[in-house]
């Protein structure tokens, strides 16, 4: 009798979640429970608001950036504006306010947006890649860096193998050691913003530095005007204006130094946008004509400034690869979880097409073995066909499924050779179905069985499904099919 083999639970996924530096999950939930993808995320990022908001491990200087902007604008509104509204125009604080809001929003979006993190390769993928790489005769622990050469627009580009993420990095992807992730179109890790700047948040970063340069220039100009016009009055007043003078000077100093750095950075990034380069590539000189001799231009450039700008800044916003919730939980609620007992109950219901399987691996729940007896083709057909039925109609009793299977197996010409051995399975299933259906009513009895499912619900729920495209309750910002990669 063929024994069913099941993949062992790999505790690595859980161990990664227990690594320090992770945002703790909501308190009060008792383990075991369904884990979120971001909770077992192996990088060094921190997730807040149920995984919607992402920050690097060291958010470092971001509070200081925010503080500087807020303090400078505060001083501007407190001191310069009353004077300038009188003497110039009322639009001064309006413009200042709009710029300030723009800067803060762009900054927060740059900091809190996923820059384009690539999830690590699943073990199957990693094994497949290993098989393709020639690793003959390497005795060292770490073989020499593996590269793969590809042609992009008739130019040879080397793809490097990332040992941490266990995959060949796509072009323009780089591994950030601070965040411990591979990031698509990696530009740089900005400590001021507290996040990597990559494909998904480069436009926010660019709008942040452009608007910040406008803001600092505006404040610097207004402040200069204020100081020039009000210096006469300062002489007339008594020493209680010392605080005002101090604030004025502080504002001037901050603006002065900011202008040089921010304007310079804006100019540099404008050049990068116009030539479709990243900071990483520019610093390394990947496409510099000095290296490599003949014809090593930038293969990604469209050779037109306007097209390059449009491609970089106006391209579509790619979806997040690191999803915020498991597939099943996305259906329920944006942040809802499936308790382990619910999963167990649904297991029983699903396995109602039961055969009398005898051999059980000791750690397996009885219901799981039922699937082994079925022909995989029928299983596949049932599964993909049931997607329509289950999602559009009330969940039928388990009794109906074997009949559907029997019909499908009988009419499927390609499995005619296998219909004979699987026919006894059907009769077994039909006969045992009523008995299976009664003791295991589907859903909602809340039995707290310690089945395999409750041991590692993340593992059990890790199933990418092409069939849930019709899930109605899907939040927009993440693809539906998020999951924890099975170990």
């Amino acid at each position, binding site marked *: 009798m063929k024994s069913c083999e099941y993949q062992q639970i790999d505790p690595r996924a859980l161990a990664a979640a227990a690594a320090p530096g992770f945002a703790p999950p909501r308190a009060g939930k008792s383990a075991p429970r369904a884990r979120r993808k971001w909770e077992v995320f192996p990088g060094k990022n921190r997730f807040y608001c149920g995984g919607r908001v992402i920050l690097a491990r060291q958010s470092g200087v971001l509070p200081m950036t925010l503080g500087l902007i807020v303090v400078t604008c505060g001083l501007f509104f407190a001191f310069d504006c009353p004077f300038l509204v009188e003497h110039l125009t009322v639009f001064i604080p309006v413009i200042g306010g709009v710029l300030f809001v723009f800067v803060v929003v762009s900054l927060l979006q740059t900091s809190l947006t996923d820059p384009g993190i690539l999830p690590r390769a699943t073990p199957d993928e990693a094994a497949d890649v290993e098989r393709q790489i020639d690793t003959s005769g390497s005795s060292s622990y770490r073989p020499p860096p593996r590269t793969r050469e590809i042609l992009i627009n008739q130019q040879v580009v080397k793809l490097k193998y990332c040992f941490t993420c266990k995959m060949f990095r*796509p072009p323009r992807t780089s591994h950030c050691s601070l965040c411990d992730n591979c990031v698509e179109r990696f530009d740089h890790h900005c400590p001021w913003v507290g996040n990597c700047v990559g494909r998904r948040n480069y436009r926010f970063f660019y709008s942040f530095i452009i608007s910040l340069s406008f803001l600092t220039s505006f404040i610097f100009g207004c402040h200069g005007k204020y100081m020039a016009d009000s210096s006469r009055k300062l002489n007339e007043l008594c020493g209680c204006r010392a605080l005002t003078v101090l604030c004025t000077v502080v504002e001037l100093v901050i603006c002065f130094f900011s202008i040089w750095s921010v304007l310079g950075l804006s100019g540099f990034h404008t050049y990068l946008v116009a030539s479709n380069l990243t900071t990483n590539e520019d610093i390394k000189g990947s496409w510099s004509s000095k290296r490599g001799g003949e014809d090593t231009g930038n293969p990604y450039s469209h050779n037109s400034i306007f097209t390059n700008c449009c491609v970089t800044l*106006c391209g*579509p916003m790619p979806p997040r*690869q690191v999803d915020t919730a498991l597939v099943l939980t996305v259906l329920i609620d944006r942040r809802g979880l499936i308790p382990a007992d619910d999963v167990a109950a649904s297991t029983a219901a699903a396995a109602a097409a039961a055969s009398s399987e005898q051999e059980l691996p000791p750690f397996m729940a009885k219901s799981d073995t039922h699937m082994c007896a079925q022909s*995989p083709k029928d299983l596949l057909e049932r599964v993909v066909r049931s997607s329509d039925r289950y999602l559009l109609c009330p969940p039928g009793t388990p009794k109906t499924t074997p009949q559907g299977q029997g019909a499908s197996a009988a009419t499927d010409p*390609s499995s005619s050779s296998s219909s004979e051995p699987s026919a006894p399975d059907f009769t077994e299933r039909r006969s045992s179905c009523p008995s299976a259906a009664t003791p295991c009513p589907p859903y909602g009895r809340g039995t707290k069985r310690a089945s395999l499912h409750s041991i590692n619900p993340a593992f059990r729920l890790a199933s990418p*499904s092409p069939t849930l*495209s019709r899930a*109605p309750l899907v939040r927009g910002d993440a693809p539906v099919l998020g999951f924890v990669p099975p170990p």
Partner: protein
Amino acid sequence: MEPRRRRHIAMQRRAAKLLFHNLQELRHSASLVNKVFVQRDYSEGTTCKFQTKFPSELESRVERTLFEDTVKTLNNFYAEAEKIGAHSYLEACVACATAYLIFLCMETRYEKASVRRPFLHFKRPVLKKIAKYIQEQNEKVYAPRGLLITDPIDRGMRVIEISIYEDRGSSGSSSASSSTSGSTAR
């Protein structure tokens, strides 16, 4: 929310749970033989495109033309999503003018629609179309042949993973268990 709608949603949730469990059982049953990975094709840059080279492991399972059609259609979907034209400029200008806050309410071309949030569509959500197409292909073409295609979005858009399931009626059951144990011994 009215009770009927609540019941309907609860029903769909249960159905989806059941469905997922079915798929999970399928994937982790002993009949999973092998997984084939169709890699990305970077010949045109970083746009999302998959190689149409026919993997040798699928030779006995599915016709070459069917496989190539599937991959080419997927490539077309992704090209449509990443296409830059007047629509994307309009989207970008509006987004910039609103300090990108519009992304909170708006579905971009890539993303799926959410029924719970008000959204402004500039383009149809392509990921949803892709998922639906993959489901159709699995139903019509691949499941009858003992194969299952995984949506690339679940693999970080790196690969199209095709799971090969061994037919239990064939003589390959012993090789199935050995290759499964080989894949689990990691």
